[in-house]
């Protein structure tokens, strides 16, 4: 007891400093994951919320039902669609723009940094309102622009495949900025002397890019790919506010499926099971990335 008291006195301040953070994260991040796991094996719904005695264990049946649920299967397909198109698009564009922005140091380049970053800080609802109007079938700007080229008006958000692509375009516009900044920060960290040495050896612009810049961006690329990948697997807000998963569940993502089941239909147990499937997919994707990632380049 005395030992404990002296330990406390000695380390009181660091414990006090971390206490709020540890308590809050435990209550709102660690405990929830345990609860989620537990209720994913129950039939918890609104009745269970009112009176815990209504909750019954159902074993694995939530998980089994998920894989019989056509909407869930569709949401997996759609999520894969988003990931396979969205991730390469965002990473390539972010890198390309970062390289362009790193080309010069004048005010022009500095101002365009802001322009490309701006969509990243906008509010998703505001974005949905503005893009919804741009995509409008009758009064929207996009269809008007198509008409310049004699192209027919498109139903941007009503056609099942086009709706997915429309959401990707919006999310792409919003995601470039942050990733571009990460690449730009990495580019500015590459020592000038590497390029000077290469120039003495007669290396051209393309070869410098291929043999110095790209390899030295290894860690940044890895970081961007991982975060973008995880982000697209959890693709959620854009379909929620733009299409609510429609038309005919064509834009329904896994995360939106979980949200709908949890908060619209109050099937907490079923939604929790869905969230664990999502979690496992994220873990697998992340592990695969770590495996693919080659030896980190030091400089």
């Amino acid at each position, binding site marked *: 007891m005395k030992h404990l008291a002296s330990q406390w006195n000695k380390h009181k301040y660091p*414990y006090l400093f971390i206490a709020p953070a540890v308590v809050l994260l435990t209550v709102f991040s660690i405990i929830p994951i345990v609860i989620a796991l537990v209720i994913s094996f129950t039939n918890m719904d609104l009745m269970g919320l009112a009176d815990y005695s209504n909750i019954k264990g159902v074993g694995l049946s939530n998980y089994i039902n998920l894989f019989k649920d056509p909407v869930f299967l569709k949401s997996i397909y759609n999520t894969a669609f988003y990931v396979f198109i969205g991730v390469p698009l965002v990473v390539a564009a972010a890198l390309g723009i970062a390289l362009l922005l790193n080309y010069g140091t004048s005010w022009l380049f500095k101002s365009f940094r802001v322009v490309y970053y701006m969509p990243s800080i906008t509010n998703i609802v505001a974005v949905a309102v503005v893009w919804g*109007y741009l995509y409008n079938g009758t009064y929207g700007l996009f269809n008007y622009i198509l008409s310049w080229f004699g192209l027919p008006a498109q139903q941007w958000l009503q056609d099942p495949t086009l709706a997915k692509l429309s959401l990707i375009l919006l999310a792409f516009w919003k995601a470039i900025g942050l990733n571009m900044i990460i690449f730009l920060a990495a580019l500015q960290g590459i020592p000038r002397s590497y390029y000077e040495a290469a120039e003495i050896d007669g290396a051209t612009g393309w070869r410098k890019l291929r043999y110095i810049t790209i390899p030295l961006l290894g860690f940044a690329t890895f970081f961007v790919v991982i975060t973008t990948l995880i982000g697209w697997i959890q693709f959620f807000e854009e379909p929620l506010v733009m299409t609510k998963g429609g038309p005919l569940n064509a834009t329904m993502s896994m995360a939106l499926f979980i949200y709908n089941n949890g908060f619209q239909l109050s099937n907490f147990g079923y939604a929790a099971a869905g969230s664990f499937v*999502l979690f496992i997919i994220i873990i697998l994707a992340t592990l695969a990335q770590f495996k693919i990632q080659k030896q980190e380049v030091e400089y």
Partner: protein
Amino acid sequence: MAVKRLEKSFMVLLLVIGGVLMMVPFIWMIGSSFKPENEFTIIPPTIIPHHPTFDNYRNLFIKLEFLTYLENTLVIVLFSFAGMFLNAMAGYAFAKFDFPGKNKFYYLILATMMIPGQVTMIPTYLIINKLNLVNTMAGIVLPGLVGAFGIFLFRQFMSTIPIDLLEAARLDGAGELRIFFQLIVPVVKPVFAVQGILTFIGAWNSFLWPLIIANDERLYTLSVGLSLLKGQYGTEFGLQMAGAAFMVVPIIIIFIFFQKHIIEGYTISGIK
């Protein structure tokens, strides 16, 4: 040299074209927010309104409760700044103190970064419900008050502060809290600048959690109010555009003022 100049012009051209394309939604939003209702159905659409009006902005406050939403949003911003200080304190303890269980606590915190929001969303709602905090400001604010990423960033920066500085302050008899607020906070001001802006943007934009927890219109944030507007006044483009502009423009102005800090913040945070 001529080739080099040609190359540069080409790069600038690409940059400008891409930049203009990125700006289209913003230009469209600002222009449309000043259009009178009858100008929305004109073909070809106008980018700059022929008869600009402030009515849309006025209606946000007269027809709708945007003033209340603004107040709620600002309250959330204020609380999130308090949360930022909690992050900073935790980061400081992890950077500059040795205590039993330090690594275990730190890994516990880092581990929370990997948990997707969808998994914790429902249980967190159940916990908030159990605590009788549904439909309260506390229920909206508490779950997101601290974050692992913020703690991580603060720890990274604070570990570079020389220990001698702290020892000197302790010898002078300063208390630990005083050392934190009067010594550490000023020293790591740049980090607070970056984190402060990011915290502000995050809180200002917060949408999903307030949507889930607030059922009462008196607790709506700007983005929840705007989504309501989108549903109920779906055909009133002017009102919607003004609402969107009201949310986006302040953030952009703040960002333009502080953008140098954000970009440098990423550079010094060691993501290279």
